[in-house]
């Protein structure tokens, strides 16, 4: 058992699916100081049956850099012991996972708040754009940004 309280940070932008159990194990393996891991997984919804897929475009280079900046803010705000952010790009079918956030801490409150903070900032600050693929086989509109997401970010001050 390693006793250190080192902060482990993983950020990946990838087309491939991820494995939440493997990522959680990688974050907690050999550590006895982590008491809580909160994860968020985002999935591709059909929006009431309209969609067959989402297509995710991103800005390579900036996406990693911006997520790193968001992670730094979370790390300076909460006593985190580990942080993992994986965001997929490309065409994602219904029910497929889009994003994974893991926040590890000694106690649950920091882990819950940090994961929620990361998601609010990811939604509004990380350079990703979603476009809809419709059930009739055509390519639909770019998803519009939601005011509710901007308001969600404001609560962090």
């Amino acid at each position, binding site marked *: 058992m390693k006793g250190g309280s080192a902060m482990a940070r993983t950020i990946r932008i990838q087309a491939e699916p991820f494995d939440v159990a493997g990522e959680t194990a990688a974050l907690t393996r050999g550590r006895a100081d982590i008491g809580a891991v909160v994860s968020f997984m985002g999935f591709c919804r059909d929006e009431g049956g309209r969609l067959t897929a989402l297509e995710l475009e991103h*800005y390579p280079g900036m996406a990693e850099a*911006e997520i790193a900046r968001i992670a730094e803010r979370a790390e300076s705000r909460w006593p985190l012991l580990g942080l993992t952010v994986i965001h997929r790009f490309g065409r994602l079918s219904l029910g497929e996972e889009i994003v994974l956030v893991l926040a590890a801490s000694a106690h649950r409150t920091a882990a819950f708040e940090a994961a929620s903070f990361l998601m609010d900032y990811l939604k509004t600050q990380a350079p990703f754009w979603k476009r809809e693929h419709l059930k009739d086989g055509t390519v639909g509109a770019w998803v519009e940004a939601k005011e509710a997401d901007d308001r969600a970010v404001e609560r962090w001050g």
Partner: protein
Amino acid sequence: MKLVYFAWVRERVGKTDEDLEVPEGIATVADLVRWLKGRGEEYEYAFENDGIVRAAIDHVHVKPEAPIAGAREIAFFPPMTGG
């Protein structure tokens, strides 16, 4: 100076990126947008609603009043919808 475009801004401009010689006197991101809009209908269309399109200089979000001197890459894109 390298300009890059994403999502519907990319589609409206009709290219993913381009290298441009920006004339003297174009000091800020807002100046650059104004100058681009004078270069053709595709730019006019991409930037038609003032304040919608976001910008980043060298991978960092910036406001319209940000100076562009020394920038290697300036990106234009719609509000983000990831996560």
